[in-house]
């Protein structure tokens, strides 16, 4: 053999060897790539399945719904004879079985037994366990005598507490692959962990709510939309004389007087989505105001116009103790009545005596007569203020009752103008009436309405300087009767106008003009008691117009 031939053979052998090595490596790489592709496909499959479950569950907190979704998804993933769940509800154990492939009763019984034993071991509970309710769907065929061949159980544990198990079972033995089963556990654990986190957040928020409600001075309790007690604070328990730490809804209901119709009010608030108030309710030694309010999700409250579509999630009840306020009001009333009665008589006497003395012009000199006039005026003013105090007290306690009769507003206005004419003449003020002759009679309390016009004219004369003008107008507009008193007086600063009708506020305070400030407050209350309204237009240093509107068909 020549060296060339030998070299050629060696080279050929070498090339063949290299080709084999390359081929082997290529095959190895191919296998690796195929394996990686399979892993990625599995991962994508896992992700898509998990996403499917997440999409179906969302932020669901109902454990039964969650278990149902997971069980159904597993049933779709695997070929099985049946897919079952055993879980704890509020009332007891629930067993649900979905038969995919007909089996006989003994297959069902075997599955049940295994599930119960598994759950008992998981929860370290002694057997036997009683199942409250069973829901079996699918065909039980006595002819399909199959033995339980293959199964696995998935424990359901929420916040470290077992709540149930899911079981996949098949008649054929050794069917489920380890990787498939591992994936199932992983998927279920992820879904249940999401629930655990949501429940943790919910528990934290509930604790915050309980703590906030607990710190309130008013009694508060909340019911869910099944009218079951959700939370109650100590103040509510004290007012309702409940000593149990966790009272039942029945105890709560019995704490209210039967005439209050507690259950009916709660039901109405939830179903009709209305707030219900009771101004005074006697609970033992306490008098309370009761406010029942439906609770709706905050996120949906922006759609208030469609509130009939927003579900009510519960109802809150607030008990505001007014025992002290009521006793103070009673004491105040009694005091005012006492003061008024005690003051009225001597004041009337003083005024009367001053009046008599002032008529004895020959016995008194000019200075004495002036002093007497002061005594008369001031005692009259004091008498008026005392009467006003009594009126205010009656108004605030809702004791004003209207004695309605047919009232001719023009006649009333004319009478009041006549009353104030002497004062107006003294200040060189002109009172100009503009009385609508077509003005019909109105149903009103003549005495109180007279007081209203009297008060308005009195104010105008007080706050209009000399040479000024006061107009008194009556007219009919849109089925209402309008009375307005306008003047060219000092006007009311804009920043003080909003407070003008509030109790004790005087826009002219400090101007030297006398008055208690109670007049317009009483005027407003009287007008509103008639179903009317009062309006103010005023500009500083130009004048003021006050317009009263009364309904014509009241």
């Amino acid at each position, binding site marked *: 053999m020549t060296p060339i031939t030998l070299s050629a053979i060696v080279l050929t052998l070498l090339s063949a060897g290299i080709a084999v090595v390359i081929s082997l490596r290529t095959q190895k790489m191919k296998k690796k790539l195929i394996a990686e592709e399979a892993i990625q496909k599995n991962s994508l499959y896992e992700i898509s399945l998990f996403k499917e479950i997440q999409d179906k569950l969302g932020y669901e907190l109902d454990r039964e719904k969650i278990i149902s979704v997971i069980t159904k998804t597993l049933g779709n993933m695997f070929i099985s004879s049946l897919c079952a769940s055993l879980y704890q509800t509020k009332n007891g154990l629930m067993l649900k079985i979905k038969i995919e492939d007909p089996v006989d009763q003994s297959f069902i019984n075997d599955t049940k037994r*295994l599930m119960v*034993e*598994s759950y008992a*071991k*998981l929860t370290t509970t002694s057997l036997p366990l009683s199942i409250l309710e069973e829901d079996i769907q699918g065909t039980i065929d006595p002819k399909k005598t199959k033995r339980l061949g*293959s*199964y*696995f*159980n*998935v*424990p359901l*544990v929420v916040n*470290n507490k*077992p709540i149930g*198990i899911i079981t996949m079972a098949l008649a054929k033995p*050794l069917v*489920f692959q*380890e990787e498939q*089963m*591992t994936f199932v*556990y*992983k998927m279920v*654990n992820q879904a249940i962990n999401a629930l655990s986190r949501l429940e943790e957040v919910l528990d934290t928020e509930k604790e915050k709510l309980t703590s906030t409600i607990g710190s309130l001075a008013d009694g508060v309790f909340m019911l869910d939309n099944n009218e079951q007690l959700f939370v109650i604070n100590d103040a509510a328990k004290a007012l309702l004389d409940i000593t149990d730490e966790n009272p039942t809804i029945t105890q709560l209901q019995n704490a209210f007087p039967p005439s209050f119709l507690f259950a009916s009010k709660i039901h109405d608030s939830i179903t009709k989505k209305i707030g219900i108030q009771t101004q005074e309710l006697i609970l033992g030694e306490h008098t309370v105001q009761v406010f029942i309010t439906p609770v709706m999700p905050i996120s949906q409250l922006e759609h208030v116009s469609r509130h009939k579509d927003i579900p009510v999630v519960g109802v809150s009840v607030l008990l505001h103790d007014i025992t002290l306020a009521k006793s103070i009001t009673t004491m105040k009333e009694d005091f005012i009545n006492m003061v008024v009665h005690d003051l009225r008589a001597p004041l009337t006497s003083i005024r009367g005596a001053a009046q008599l003395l002032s008529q004895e012009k020959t016995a008194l000199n000019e200075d004495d007569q002036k002093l007497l006039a002061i005594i008369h005026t001031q005692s009259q003013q004091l008498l008026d203020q005392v009467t006003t105090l009594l009126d205010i007290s009656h108004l605030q306690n809702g004791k004003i009752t209207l004695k309605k009769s047919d009232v001719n507003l023009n006649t009333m206005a004319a009478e009041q103008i006549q009353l104030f004419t002497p004062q107006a003449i003294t200040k060189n003020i002109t009172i100009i009436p503009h009385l609508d002759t077509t003005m019909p009679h109105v149903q009103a309390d003549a005495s109180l309405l007279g007081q209203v016009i009297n008060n308005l004219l009195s104010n105008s004369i007080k706050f209009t300087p000399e040479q000024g003008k006061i107009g008194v107008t009556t007219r009919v507009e849109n089925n209402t009767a309008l009375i307005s008193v306008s003047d060219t007086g000092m006007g009311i600063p804009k920043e003080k106008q909003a407070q003008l009708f509030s109790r004790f506020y005087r826009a002219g305070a400090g101007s030297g003009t006398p008055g208690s400030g109670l007049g317009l407050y009483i005027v407003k209350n009287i007008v509103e008691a008639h179903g009317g309204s009062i309006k103010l237009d005023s500009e500083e240093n130009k004048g003021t117009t006050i317009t009263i509107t009364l309904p014509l068909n009241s």
Partner: protein
Amino acid sequence: MHLPSNPDSIGTDKNYQTLFTQIIKDTMLVLGPEITSAKMQKVPGLTITADGTVTNTPTDPKKIVKNMVEVFMTISPFLTQKMIDLVYG
């Protein structure tokens, strides 16, 4: 997962053959025999019958516990904690 502060405290005075048998049988009862057997294949050092009985004396119980925890952790953390409590309790 609540592991004891000193995992080396796993002593030598326990009958680990009996202990591991109990753990495996309990796990079979809760999860099912197939998945338990499949997972126990990945825990070397134990010879197990079909019903979960351990037939050998474990020579390195600490390592076996560590492997069991790793293997069953993905299946059920709750059950794994119970295993640890049983071993170190």
